[in-house]
Every structure is written in C-alpha cells, then in structure tokens.
C-alpha cells in the first residue's frame, strides 16, 4: 500500500478549449479511502484514468508511493482498476479472470492458486470459480471484478463507479461490502462516483470536482457542515440545500437578511454580521438544508419564513414538502405525522447555526 499524490494535475484534450482537469492537487494518504465525486463530465473519471496510466498527463505530476509515475506504463504503476463495466474477459472462467494478471507477472502457480482462493473466499465466489462471466449475475460479476483487483495486492485500488450497473438494493449491499473490504485490506482506495450518497457513506475524505476543478476536499462531515462554496453545498446532501438570494439590511443591533417580497428574513448574530461586513456585500445567497427547516415559529435569531405547501412527498418516516415562499421554491423535511395538506400556509424557521452564507457572485462561502 502506498500514498497517492496529485500535483497540479492538468488534462487538456486536443481540439478542446476547456480543460478536462484543471490543476488538481490532492494527497491521498496510505490506506485512505477517498472518493472523487462530481456531476457527469466533471473530470473525475479522467483523473482516475490518468492515475491508472490510461490517459496521458498534460501537465503536473502523479506520485504513487514516492515515485513519479507520469511516464510509466499502466502495468508498471502497481495499481488495480475496477471498471464501471467490470471489463471481465468473457472467454475466461472466474478463476482465470482473477489469475490473469498474476500469470502475466510470472507468479508461481501455487501462490496464484492461493491468492485466487483467498479472494474468492473473501468475496463469496468459491462455487463460481469455474463459471464464465456470461453465466453470472450482475452482482457476481461485480465481485469478480473486485477479486481480480484484490489478488494482485496492488499499491492502490482505483474504482470507477463500480456500483452504477447494479440495482438499488444490491448497490446498498455492495457499498457495505466495499467498505468492509477496505477495512480488511487497509488498502489505499480512490473511488470515483457521481452519487454523493456513496461518497458520504464510504469515504474517509471526499474530493468534490466540478468542471475540471477541485472544489473542496474534506471529511464527509466537513463537507456537509462547512461547504466551501455554493456548488459543494448543493451537491452534498439530499434533497439538496435550498438557496435564496437575500438583501442585507442594517438594524439597530446588527444586520439582517430579507428576501424579495419579505417572506423570509434572517436575524443575524454578531459573528455573521461581521462576516458580511468584512466581505463588503449588500446581497448574499442564503443556504439552508431541507432537514434543518423546522415547522415551528422561532423567537430570536435565525430564519423565519412564511410559505405555502405545493407538493408533499411521503417517505414513511418523514415527508419532503415543496414550498413556495414569495418567488422562491424550497424543500423542507418534516415529520410524516405532521398534518399537512397542499395549499396550507405555514410559518417555518431555522436556527442561525443552520444558515450558510455564500458570496452572490463567486459562490464562495463567507467566513
């Protein structure tokens, strides 16, 4: 196992003006599970393929362990890649699929056999070793793809959306298995996904990428509690954070925020007021997560809003309530036992701790 370091890694394809990956720097510690997450086409898979050696580096460096591997062939980088499509060799049996890489490296036969049997036991594939991929279910194929990576005991595991071809139930199950596998092997894992739930549940740290740029790196809790900008705020968490543009107004003992039409207002404390004064803005974007909106009026500080109910999505334990407040549309999560009907007028609130403030132009979090 080793660390993986990206230094100002950049990728630009010929005939394409935009950078697919723009100066991304990232330290992945030895044994760490890191998720690269972002919307489709953000460059996260490009980054992974560059680490694997399947794409050339335009500029910057990739280090695995203490070697710069920019110009090394994929096979000399000592990494394993689990493909989104699994990429199993259809003409080989499960055991041949898993032993292929070891055979190429001229590992002694008895060691290969042992490695394959060990991996098969870990992944519960023992009774399928003589089957071909065509005779396996999606979940089993996925495990063979994992097994093929495990047997080689590489410095780092790279995974490219390995769960996206599984159905929802199997995905949750396999998610836990990969987390367990990481724990058991203590391996460095770089995992690419567009699904923030996968990232949140599995990763030690998450790197959020958008339009080729690294937006923020941090633990799932950091990203959830302290998003660096509006993009990360909106991307992490489901349903996603509500954003409302607000005007800054002075009141006797500090500042307050008011929405167009005045249906929402936030009484700011001293800390938030000084943050806004320091930024020197007269408008801000307020962010508040649906789960932090309470269906009660609140006295003193925080967000107060009047809104009417548009849509109610019943989910069992709670409900997602789509609201209109003035010209703004928001989502709130409320207890499913709350008696609500469409068209109801509500008074809602959120504590000042739940309010995120973003710069109206740059989108950066104000702090």
């Amino acid at each position: 196992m080793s660390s993986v370091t990206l230094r100002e890694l950049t990728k630009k394809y010929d005939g394409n003006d935009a950078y697919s990956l723009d100066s991304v720097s990232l330290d992945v510690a030895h044994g760490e599970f890191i998720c690269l997450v972002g919307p489709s086409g953000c460059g996260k898979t490009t980054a992974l393929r560059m680490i694997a050696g399947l794409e050339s580096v335009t500029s910057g460096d990739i280090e695995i362990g203490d070697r710069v591997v920019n110009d090394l062939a994929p096979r000399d980088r000592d990494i394993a890649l689990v493909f989104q499509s699994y990429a199993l060799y259809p003409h080989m049996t499960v055991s041949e699929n898993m032993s292929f890489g070891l055979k190429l490296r001229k590992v002694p036969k008895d060691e290969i056999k042992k490695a394959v049997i060990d991996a098969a036991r870990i992944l519960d594939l023992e009774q399928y070793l003589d089957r071909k991929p065509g005779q396996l279910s999606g979940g089993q194929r996925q495990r063979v793809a994992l097994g093929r990576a495990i047997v080689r005991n590489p410095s780092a595991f790279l995974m490219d959306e390995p769960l996206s071809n599984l159905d929802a139930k199997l995905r949750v199950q396999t998610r836990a298995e990969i987390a367990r596998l990481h724990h058991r092997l203590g391996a460095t894992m770089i995992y690419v996904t567009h699904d923030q739930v996968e990232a949140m549940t599995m990763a030690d740290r998450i790197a959020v990428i958008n339009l080729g740029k690294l937006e923020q790196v941090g633990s799932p809790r950091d990203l959830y509690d302290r998003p660096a900008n509006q993009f990360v705020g909106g991307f992490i968490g489901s349903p996603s954070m509500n954003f409302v543009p607000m005007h800054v107004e002075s009141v006797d003992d500090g500042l307050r925020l008011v929405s167009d039409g005045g249906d929402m207002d936030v009484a700011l404390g001293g800390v938030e007021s000084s943050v806004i004064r320091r930024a020197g803005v007269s408008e801000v974007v307020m962010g508040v997560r649906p789960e932090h909106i309470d269906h009660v009026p609140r006295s003193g500080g925080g967000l107060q809003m009047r809104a009417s109910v548009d849509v109610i999505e019943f989910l069992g334990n709670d409900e997602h309530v789509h609201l209109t407040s003035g010209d703004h549309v928001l989502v709130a999560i409320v207890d499913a036992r709350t008696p609500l009907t469409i068209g109801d007028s509500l008074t809602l609130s959120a504590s000042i701790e739940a309010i995120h403030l973003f710069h109206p132009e740059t989108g950066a979090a104000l702090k």
Partner: protein
Amino acid sequence: MSKVDPLEDEKAAPLKERRVAVVARRLHISTLTVNIALGLVAIFWLVPTISLLIISLRPESLFGTSGWWTVFTAPSQLTFGNYTTVFSQGFATGGVLNSLITSLEITIPATILVALISSLAAYSLVFGFWRGRDMIFLVIVGLMVVPLQVALIPVVQFYRELGNLFGLNPYGTIPGVIIFHVAFGLPFGIFLMRNFLTGIPRDLLEAGRIEGAGEWKIFYRIVLPLALPAIASLAIFQFIWVWNDLLVALVFLGGNVHTPLTIYLYDQTRSLAANYWIVSTGAVVSIFVPLIVFFSFQRYFVRGVLAGAVK
C-alpha cells in the same frame, strides 16, 4: 452476499430450437413452416451433391445408358472402381492425389496468412494509437472492389522484375500463387475483422494493460480468442475462394507440372472428351476438403462470445 440466482430457463433450451423459434416469431409464421422451408432448402442443395457422389460411384459404362437415380432400384451398380483407377497413380505428377496436395499447398498458407495479417491489421486499425486509421480503412474498403483481372498482367510483370533484380521470380511457382491470393484476400479480410473487433469493448484491453499485458499478450490472449468466430468465417471464405480458383492458378502456374485440383478437372474435360467418370470422381475429391474445413470450423460460430464482458 447475494444468493445464487438461477440462470434463466430460456438459456437452457437447445440453441438450434431457439433460433428456429426466434425466426418464426419475427416473421409471424409457425415453427412448422420455418422447418419445412429449411428442409426444402436443404434438399435443393443436397440433390445435386448426392447425384454427383452416386455418378462417381457408378461404372463408366453405365454413364450414357441409364440415369444416376436407377441406383436406388439396383444398388449393385455401386462400385469403387473409379476411385481405384483415379487413385492408382498415387502421388505421381498428373494424378488426382498430386493435385490434391498442390491445392492444399496453395490454399492452407494463403488462408493462414490472410487470417493472421487481417487480424493484426484490424487490431491496429481499431485499437492502435496512430492518426489516419479511418482514412487507411477507407482505402482498404476501396481496394475490395478492384477486380483481380486488372492485376494479372502487372503482377506477372512485377514478378519478372523481382526475378531480374533479385534472381527470385515467383512466377510459375506455388509461392507466386499464394502471394497473389493473399494480396487479394486481405482487403475483405481486414474489412471483416475490423468490423468485428470494433465490437470488443476497449475496457477489456485497458484492463489487460493495467494487469501487465503488452500489446502482443493483449492481442493473442484477449482479442484473438474473442475474434474466433470472425476468424473462422474469414478462414472459410478465403479457403473456399482459393480452393475453387482456376484463373489465378492458370495464369501463374501455367506450365508447372504440379497443378491444383481445379486445373486437373479442367484438363480432364479438355483433353479426354466427355471423360465424366474422372471428372465426377475428381469433383467429389475436391468437394471433400472444403466440407471438412467447414465442419471443423463450425463450432467457432458461437453467438454471444462477448456475454458477460461488460455489465
């Protein structure tokens, strides 16, 4: 982990029956109709072939006096006499067995070379990293329509030049015929292989590359096994084409004492007027080899070789 999922029952049904059923459903007709149609086609092809076989098994004297079908009422007509006579020359020059060997000497290398070179070229055209691959492919497609007749004289001259320059004139030799057949087999071979290889997911090659395979290993451990159905059909096409060729052999082997079966049969009709018993016997011999090739390659015509590769 997940439970063993039983494979769908449909997959267990014999492949042949399923295919008939699929065709029937698509054409909105019953399975019976499809089977009858298939039977008619089979009879249509089998009758002339069987009649040829029977003619070769009847004595020369009966040829002009009664039809081949009379054998069904008088099976005593059947004799291996023709074969004994034809084979009596053994492998001596001018005999059918000598021609059989010559045909094999031409056809086997011409087939193997085309299959090998086409696969390599197609691999490079599909998975290579060089520019202009599509352009080259278009040129190759264009070459498919060049009639081989236009090349006869230039190639003969080219061979002569080779002889003048290096003292190695392939004209009139078996390698000379092989080179010509390979050259004219390649455009179609590359076309077929390239179109097949584009269906192989790139991920498979990348997986191999990461696991430690170089280009050669990827080619013969991953791509070649998956391309077997295409290689089998290409080999059959090329084999039968070269096996049945008369024109190229006549032009390039004219005067050579070793002649392929096609020239042998042609000589029988030309020199000894209406020597049908030899022609029919020789024809059966020359049908026999392509049949063996066809049936031995048949098992590579597998549908769904890529099943389970991706997803």
